[in-house]
């Protein structure tokens, strides 16, 4: 039977988590991609690994530790970027490789990798617990409410920070808000696709939608659609062909990107 998949408790959880993530991740991703900040998602994911390692070492909830670690880094990254002494991408590169180094050292202190840590790196839908689901549901409400309330300001600072400031809009605070939302989203979404692949889910559906040359609003909506298709079909494929869920989801989204790129290729 084709839908036996839904008779399994862990798969039902995976689908609920996947649906929540596939809606909010590209929304946040759009605000990063349009300002050429795509690397931010990956950077925050690597910082999350430091949180996970801390959580594992100290025997506390690794997801909550990851949220805290990436939120603190998000603040530091925005501060450094605001100083305008370094290129934004250099700041991201420093955090990305630096946090990976910290995480690796911490893991070695914990006497090597264990299965638990691997599940964070590559995602593991079978280990999603009800706490994870509650956290994701809360994040879902937070992200959608924030975008709903501050959409016009988020658009303005993403399109033209200087113009926003000239009009008296608090551009730096709004930037920080967007990056904090990204930090929390990345840390919570890593359970599904994994730390190493969350950046892909945040960026690829948005870049795919961008191929169709749509308005900003429609770019967000279409990227949600691509992300939903990738996550749902990725989960099905990974279950029936016994593949890694995170990798399958990202491969589906890459296939959609390729198709969109070919359909919209320049004459």
């Amino acid at each position, binding site marked *: 039977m084709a839908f036996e998949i839904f008779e399994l408790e862990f798969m039902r959880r995976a689908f609920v988590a996947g649906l929540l993530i596939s809606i909010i991740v590209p929304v946040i991703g759009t605000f990063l991609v*349009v300002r050429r900040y795509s690397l931010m998602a990956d950077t925050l994911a690597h910082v999350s690994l430091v949180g996970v390692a801390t959580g594992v070492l100290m025997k506390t909830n690794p997801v909550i530790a990851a949220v805290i670690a990436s939120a603190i880094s998000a603040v530091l990254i925005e501060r450094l970027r605001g100083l305008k002494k370094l290129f934004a991408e250099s700041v991201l590169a420093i955090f990305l490789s630096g946090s990976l180094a910290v995480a690796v050292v911490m893991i070695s202190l914990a006497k090597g990798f264990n299965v638990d840590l691997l599940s964070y790196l590559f995602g593991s839908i079978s280990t999603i617990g009800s706490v994870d689901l509650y956290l994701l549901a809360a994040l879902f409400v937070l992200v959608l409410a924030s975008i709903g309330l501050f959409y016009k300001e988020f658009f303005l600072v993403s399109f033209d920070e200087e113009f926003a*400031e000239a009009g008296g809009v608090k551009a730096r605070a709004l930037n920080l808000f967007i990056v904090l939302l990204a930090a929390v989203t990345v840390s919570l979404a890593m359970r599904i696709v994994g730390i190493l692949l969350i950046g892909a889910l945040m960026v690829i559906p948005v870049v795919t939608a961008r191929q169709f040359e749509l*308005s900003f609003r429609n770019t967000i909506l279409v990227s949600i659609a691509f992300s939903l298709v990738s996550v749902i079909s990725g989960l099905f494929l990974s279950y029936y062909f016994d593949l890694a869920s995170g990798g399958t989801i990202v491969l589906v989204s890459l296939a959609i990107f390729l198709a969109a790129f070919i359909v919209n290729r320049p004459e």
Partner: protein
Amino acid sequence: MTGPATCIEVRDVSFGYAGNPILQDITFDVREGEYLGIIGPNGGGKTTLFKVILGLLVPQKGEVRIYGEPLESFRKKHVIGYVPQRSLSDYYFPATVEEVVRSGRTARLGLLKRFAREDAGAIERVMEVTDVATLRKRLIGQLSGGERQRVFIARALASDPKILILDEPDVGVDVSAQEKFYSFLENLNTGSGLTILLISHDIDVVAHQARSILCLNRRLVCHGPPKDFITEDYMQKLYGKKVRFILHGH
């Protein structure tokens, strides 16, 4: 004698980066309804002066007042419409003309306020007068230089400003579009009483359009009506060479 009220006061402003002065002891007033052209060599501090007036840069010395209030405490910054200098690299952004023009009204609306019918009407009007209404669904990256310029003017006008500040708005715009553009600016100034501050590299344009001119080369070289300024002496002070100048019109 009472003339139009002062809307911008720049008092003794100095600004520089790490011992490299860009603006030194700049003092001048802008009156309501004035059309002020700002000229000067590259690196003379024109854009920096605009950024100080807009509050984007904080001067090391001196102060700026808008309608009599110090800039730092002035809350209604949306009364100033800003048309920044542009580079082509921004245009990958997926946004339609309409979305960009609407974003010009965000600051005026304020946090948590949604676009009401009145705002939609105002946005529609500025798109009509700037002749971009027919482009509304086009992406900003698909426009010609002249069209894009009109969109950025429309965005600046969307907040119903009293003062319009334009930084080299004619870069990348062909000559015929430029003529139309400057007569449009003149209409805004004479018809709607909008105060205009314009930076242009084209001294000829500034001398013919603006009703007063400010020459800036780190210091204020001169400030007055075009006929006072068009003497070879000032041009030499500004650009370090003799420039011949013919004034007609006005």
